[in-house]
């Protein structure tokens, strides 16, 4: 009876505290990262009186948040994984749709281009066929340019997002650092009472940070959290935070890198980042966007090169030798664009990349760096393995790789550590353009033709006319003529002479001929390949038979070169003769499709896992209104009961007073 009112008052206080915790919980039901709190109650020390302990009521021991750090950590990790796949998928699906959609894909234009060449081969003299061919050629070029631009735009969006993600990371790091400071001081001043809401807010900031980038968290003894990215680069240490930013460290590439800044020094940590949205962005760029640029560029380069080469072996409607159909793959601008020097280079060397064999090109991007200690350049593949090492060839020198291109050191000298990105194929699709302007310039014919005079009595026949180089003196000495003009005269069924009909001199005598087989008439006479063309003769010629060889003047209906260009579409010209243009594009589409599909599946799986850990977190720390409603009633009743005790204690007092 000692202090009935006092005990009741302690009950009232405890209930009121519990009610306010409940009300705090209810109010924060929609607060991100809020962990529900519970009031911890304990009995007061009892009073020993008359040989027994008399209870003295209740004390509020603590108000704690219900939180399991393992679950919090799991949630962070799963958020990081999900955001990474999500970012990957966001970008992959754009490229995927771009490459697959009929209205943007390369394939239909490529098909129409070669169909137009087929139509031309059916009627090579037709101006309208030639017109159609030129416009389908232009459409094909446009398609390559457009797809490149679309992917480039996607890459630009990615750069912008990299920028905004890194600045968000910087902001979050700064707020975590300031939470660290506040939490530290609260702990020091309050003898160990946890600042629940601050801890929640810091946990939430860390969770948001882990959505942006994969982080490692190291709790410190002073209750602060140290946070690291990449391979241990610090973002937050105690009350200090560092800055992440993006920058274009390689000129002309539009490929922003992630830089960690502390004070005046900044470190490029792009290759070290993984996880989170930032990690996803960087890996989709490396695994999907870069390869699409390179693969698309490679197809454009091989297509331009092979069509150009064959076209240049032909003859146009005005008897002129064929020119370039598409732009020259080794144009001066194209050669320069393939080298991107690091901004930090201190040497003066100027470098270009020329393509020797488009068919041997891969889809790699390379890195070239110079070591002044050894005086050697080293060319690295994209996976950082060494492609080749070679001594500095000096200004004017060049180095030919085994991957179809050469490095030309045009001027200047390198400094130690100078680094260049070597991008043989990246801009191929962007730089492609139409070179041919006039319909009459389409070289559907070949410049060489033959005649078998009626006086021939044998059964020899022309099997093929090979033209593989029109830059030889045979073609370039005089226009519209072969120089020298050759005539084949059979001196028996198995031997022939080659006569220069201009000078009437015999340039090869008694060359052996094998009847019933393909005989390269000029090759066997030792005149081809110097001549740049050959006549393949077969069958059984007779003595005095003649094969006359002429420049194909007026051969407007000759479709042989058109057919040879058509043949290119089915020839495995890409990737060291392993696939066709269309095949390479199909590989690209299915490669991107597979990666996008993987990302989609991984994203879904990561989402399921994330949902599970969210549920787990919610299950432990989330506020349940039903629970709080029940508590509300419970604490209200407890409060009412304590109040009733006070009333009773008052009545008891009145009873005593009244009896006096």
């Amino acid at each position: 009876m000692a202090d009935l009112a006092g005990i009741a008052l302690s009950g009232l206080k405890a209930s009121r505290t519990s009610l306010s915790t409940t009300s705090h919980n209810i109010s924060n039901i929609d607060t991100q990262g809020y962990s529900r709190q519970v009031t911890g109650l304990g009995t007061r020390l009892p009073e020993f009186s008359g040989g027994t302990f008399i209870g003295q009521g209740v004390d509020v021991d603590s108000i704690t948040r219900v939180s399991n750090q393992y679950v919090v950590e799991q949630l962070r990790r799963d958020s990081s994984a999900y955001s990474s796949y999500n970012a990957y998928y966001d970008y992959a699906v754009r490229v995927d749709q771009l490459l697959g959609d009929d209205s943007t894909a390369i394939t239909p234009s490529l098909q129409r281009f070669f169909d137009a060449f087929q139509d031309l081969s059916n009627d090579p003299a037709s101006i309208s066929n030639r017109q159609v061919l030129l416009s389908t050629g232009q459409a094909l070029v446009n398609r390559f340019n457009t797809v490149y631009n679309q992917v480039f735009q996607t890459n630009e969006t990615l750069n912008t997002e990299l920028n905004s993600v890194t600045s968000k990371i910087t902001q979050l790091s700064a707020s975590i650092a300031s939470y660290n400071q506040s939490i530290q001081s609260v702990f020091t001043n309050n003898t160990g009472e946890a600042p629940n809401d601050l801890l929640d807010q810091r946990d939430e900031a860390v969770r948001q940070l882990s959505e942006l980038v994969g982080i490692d968290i190291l709790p410190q003894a002073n209750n602060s959290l140290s946070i690291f990215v990449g391979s241990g680069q610090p973002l937050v240490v105690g009350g200090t935070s560092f800055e992440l930013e993006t920058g274009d460290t390689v000129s002309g590439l539009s490929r922003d890198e992630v830089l960690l800044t502390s004070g005046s020094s900044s470190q490029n940590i792009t290759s070290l980042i993984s996880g989170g949205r930032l990690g996803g962005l960087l890996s989709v760029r490396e695994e999907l966007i870069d390869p699409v640029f390179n693969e698309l560029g490679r197809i454009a380069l091989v297509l331009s090169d092979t069509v150009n080469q064959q076209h240049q072996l032909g003859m146009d409607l005005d008897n002129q030798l064929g020119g370039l159909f598409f732009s020259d793959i080794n144009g001066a601008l194209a050669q320069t664009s393939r080298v991107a020097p690091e901004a930090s280079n201190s040497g003066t060397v100027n470098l270009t990349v020329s393509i020797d064999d488009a068919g041997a090109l891969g889809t790699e991007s390379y890195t070239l760096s110079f070591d002044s200690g050894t005086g050697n350049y080293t060319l690295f593949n994209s996976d950082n393995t060494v492609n080749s090492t070679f001594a500095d060839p000096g200004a004017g020198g060049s180095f030919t790789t085994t991957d179809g291109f050469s490095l030309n050191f045009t001027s200047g000298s390198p400094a130690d550590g100078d680094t260049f990105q070597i991008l043989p194929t990246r801009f191929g699709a962007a730089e492609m353009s139409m070179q041919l302007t006039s319909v009459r310039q389409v070289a559907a014919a070949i410049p060489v033709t033959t005649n078998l005079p009626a006086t021939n009595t044998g059964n020899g026949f022309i099997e093929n006319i090979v033209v593989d180089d029109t830059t030889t003196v045979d073609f370039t000495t005089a226009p519209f003529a072969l120089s020298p003009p050759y005539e084949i005269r059979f001196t028996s069924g198995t031997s022939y002479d080659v006569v220069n009909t201009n000078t009437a001199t015999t340039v090869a005598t008694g060359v052996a001929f094998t009847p019933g087989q393909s005989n390269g008439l000029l090759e066997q006479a030792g005149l081809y390949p110097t001549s740049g063309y050959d006549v393949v003769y077969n069958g059984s010629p007779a003595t005095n038979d003649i094969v006359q060889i002429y420049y194909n003047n007026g051969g407007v209906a000759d479709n042989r070169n058109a057919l040879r260009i058509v043949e290119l579409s089915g020839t495995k010209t890409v990737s060291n003769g392993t696939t066709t243009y269309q095949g390479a594009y199909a590989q690209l589409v299915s490669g991107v499709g597979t990666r996008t599909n993987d990302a989609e599946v991984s994203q879904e799986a990561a989402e399921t896992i994330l949902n599970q850990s969210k549920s787990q977190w919610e299950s432990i720390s989330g506020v349940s209104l039903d629970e709080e409603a029940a508590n509300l009633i419970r604490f209200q009743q407890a409060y009412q009961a304590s109040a009733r005790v006070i009333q009773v204690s008052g009545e008891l007092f009145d009873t005593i007073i009244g009896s006096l």
Partner: protein
Amino acid sequence: MAIRISTSQIFNQGSASILENQSKVNQTQLQLSKGTRILKPSDDPIGSAVALDLQKQIDNAKQYISNSERARTKLEIEESSLDNVTSILQRIRELSLQASNATLNQTDRKTITVEIESRFDELVGLANTQLASGEYLFSGYKSNVKPFSINGTGSVNYNGDQGVQLVNVNSSVQVESGNSGDEVFQNIKTGNGSFVTTAASTNLGTGVISAAVLEDPTAYIGDVYTVDFSLNGSGSLQYQVTGANSGALYSAPLPIFDEGGKVTVDGVSYSISGFPQAGDSFTVEPSFSQDMFTTVNQIVSALKLPNNSSEQQATFLNALNLGMQNLDQAMNHVDEVRASVGSRLNVIDSEADINEGLIVEAESALSVVKDLDYAEAITQLNKRTLALQAAQQSFVQVQNLSLFEFL
């Protein structure tokens, strides 16, 4: 103990499942509206690569069919021109045969000659056939050049070349979509295709030489032979055969002429009928190429020969025979070219059939890969719509369940 469910969990899960079902309904709806299962390559990366390949096959086959059509048009024009050439040559042959009749007088022969001459012009016209585009059918690669022109002496020059266009009618099959004028009109073997036998125009006798035949290829040396007649000491008609390379074949006494008797020299046999006179000569030589215009001209000039004596008649017949032999060769040659045109048309037809079949097959394969199974998709749509409705309804019901409702 039951798992604790927080209030935001109830809301989050409710809305998440509604969103998920909505996106599935949307995906099915898109598939239905586009009629395809693969909306983007990642929906089925392998399938979309296969689809690209199948589409390429279909497009190629369509192009081959279009190529075939073009080649067919050209070959059909050529075929009808060749038909006309054949009938002209046949008419000329009929007329020549009439003219060979000894009873015809000069006037009759003149009429025949006039007709043959006009047929000749028609023949040149056919050889200069033009396509709708204005290009010449028979000038090889020089299709802008009129292939045949008559020069001042009445003979015909070929101005084209020997080029022949090839057309892709399938990935591995190329067909020649024409023949050069050189091949059709020019390159025709004379005589009977192996040998030409001619009588000297100065012959005075009535000897007529037959066509020569190769009887023993092993003995054949490809020489040009001259048969010269003379009288021996006893006044009998004897002959000597001299090879241009091998020289005189017989030493005295020379063989005596036997009318119609077969003579075989170095594996080549021929006979001479009628009565040659001493001093007459005949030649037997391997065939060479001659154009059909020259052949017709040969016949015309034979018809213009005088025909007043039996000797003149023999000279005329020898000349006409040679011309007619060459004419037969020309007709055979045109038939051969026509047969080859016909067989090329057959190849084109069968390749076009193959391509049509390929298109049908590839399209059905493509449909399997790409096209939507509508029945399945509609079932899916129904299922997903139902799931969406269920998610929405359960959300509405569950979110009403709050203890606060009862306070």
